[in-house]
């Protein structure tokens, strides 16, 4: 039986689809029988859905326009002096 520690150590690889077929098989088999690891796996995936969703992290409206206006002003003033 593979230890939980080993499964957790390869979890990112597995989530990213970079684990070898053998490793995938080992991990999937373990996840079916281990509630703890399976909970970590599920929540990690869920978290990545949330953090990776652009809607969760919209920049404030007008942010880009304000930034470029600021730079225009600052850079032009700089060139004047």
């Amino acid at each position, binding site marked *: 039986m593979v230890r939980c520690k080993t499964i*957790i150590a390869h979890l990112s690889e597995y989530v990213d689809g970079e684990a070898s077929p053998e490793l995938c098989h080992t991990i999937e088999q373990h996840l079916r029988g281990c509630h703890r690891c399976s909970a970590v796996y599920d929540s990690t995936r*869920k978290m990545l859905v949330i*953090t990776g969703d652009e809607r969760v*992290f919209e920049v404030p409206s007008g942010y880009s326009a304000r*930034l*470029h206006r600021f*730079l225009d002003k*600052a850079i032009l003033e700089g*060139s004047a002096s």
Partner: protein
Amino acid sequence: MNDQALMEKSREPFLIQRIRAGERSHFHELIRPYERRAFLIAYSVLRNQDDAEDAVQQAMLKIFLHLEQLAETDKFAQWAMRVVENEAKMYKRKRHQHLYQSVDEEQEKEGQTKHFHPKQFADWRDLPNEILEQQEVRAAIIEALASLPEIYREIFVLRDMEHLNIAEAAEILGISVPMVKTRLHRARLMMREALSPIFAKPKVSIWERWKGVNPWFAAKR
């Protein structure tokens, strides 16, 4: 990297050259691909939108003023994001001094991130998707992100929020691919752990909020 991003990237040394030659208006084009990332980095440090905007503005100005000093023009992204990160931290220090706050908060956070083995095993399977759009969730993620040491926060932002691939992230951070993978793995475990109480513990409150957004539930009442 997709074609568009690749084209933008390969254009950077050219843009930098033009800006150095006095065509300042190209600076807008140069920084445009990095605006969101810069904001995320600053916001994860400062946790306040106005402060983050200020910090990004100051950082971008510094980037412009010091563009001359950038030796490797193909490393612009890595250098620029480092400037943003430093500016945000400086801003935070200034703000802390101003508010007479102690550094205890900071130390406490550092301590929390020492362990990265999962301790919270609660299940999030019943987390409704509507939660995604909650302000509270956004705040929780920022909080969790800010609790991560810099090396983990930056990889998490680049990879799991900005969706860069491993190779791109390695390039920006100036570290090896295996190092990116190791840090990313730890960053994810730390983030998950930091977010666990928010999602797992207050089941009732999530249920309450769910009632508010689920028409089926509302109809049954």
